[in-house]
């Protein structure tokens, strides 16, 4: 069902899609370039690459899934989901790297 009252035309969507596709291609190129950077450690590369991937994801989710024009209800569901994923990953990582004091170093 239409979310907005603006008239929908194929031309407007094709224009939007061309822009997004171009940006996505640039982002992919950027990630590949970042992964071959000569004087950066793997941690640094991971951070840069994931940041670019996040931009990519934002475009796909925001425009192609029209999340930017979606209702508050959907945002609420996704905010909780993201919180729980971060909780799962973060707490598990923390738990597996926190050791009782005075015991052998792992």
């Amino acid at each position, binding site marked *: 069902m239409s979310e907005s009252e603006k008239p929908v035309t194929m031309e407007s969507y094709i224009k939007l899609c061309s822009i997004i596709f171009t940006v996505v291609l640039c982002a992919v190129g950027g990630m590949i370039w970042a992964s071959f950077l000569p004087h950066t450690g793997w941690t640094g590369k991971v951070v840069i690459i994931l940041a670019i991937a996040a931009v990519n994801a934002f475009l*796909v989710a925001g425009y192609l899934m029209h999340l930017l024009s979606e209702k508050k209800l959907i945002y609420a569901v996704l905010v909780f989901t993201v919180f729980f994923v971060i909780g799962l*990953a973060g707490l598990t990582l923390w738990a597996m790297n926190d050791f009782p004091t005075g015991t052998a170093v792992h």
Partner: protein
Amino acid sequence: MEIPYTVENRPDTGIYNAKLGIWLFLASEVMLFGGLFSAYVLLRTGAEPGMWPHGWLDVRLGTLNTILLALSAITTLLAWAACKVRDFGKFKFFHACTILLALSFLCVKSYEYHDKFIHYEIALNDGTFADGHLEEKSPDFDLKAKTGTITILGRIVNDRKELMDLRTYKPVNSKIEIKVADILKMQNYGPWHNTYTAIYFTMTGLHALHIIGGTIVIFYIWAFNRKMWKTDPERFTNRVEVSGLFWHFVDLVWIFLFPVMYLT
């Protein structure tokens, strides 16, 4: 009583039923792939230093797949837009493109999988390691009986660490013949090879299953739901939108999967 809000939006939430349904389902999928990504992070950070592979996957093929999938996401959106402007011809065209792009993605992926299954790491009796693609086996090849010879296109290294980081230790391959009698252990790069291949096959495999599922649904709507276009075009458009949302999610997963597996 009919079930309300299957097509028109409910006033206070502003959406129709199936759209809420698909977003809820996608939230559970975020948790599913999130769980798998967490497992990836844990396995990688917990691995012995120097023993986590880099460069085992062909970046060119991965990039090709990324472009195919991104393009299919675009065509999916355009197919929905065509429905909104009631242009059935354009809808048919764009979703046919989506289906073809999806099938191409799967073909490239199958090729990549096959490549891993014919790539062997061979521990030799003298403590060195041979590594490469299996070219041929002699007719009397028998691993248990230790007879025969095999030919690989690869190299022999002394330290297993050199097999891990292919960015640093760029392989120079040549045809090598190995006697089976010299082989201590021979294993291909399947999921059992190490935790990297395990998580790679699991995540890309599950992703591929989602691609197959999404393709089947989109194909079904494209081929068999045409009657609904005539009787209830708004409901048809909603189906296209909902299946398109699933497809975009599949693309979203690949957006993270590609850099994580191929580039880092």
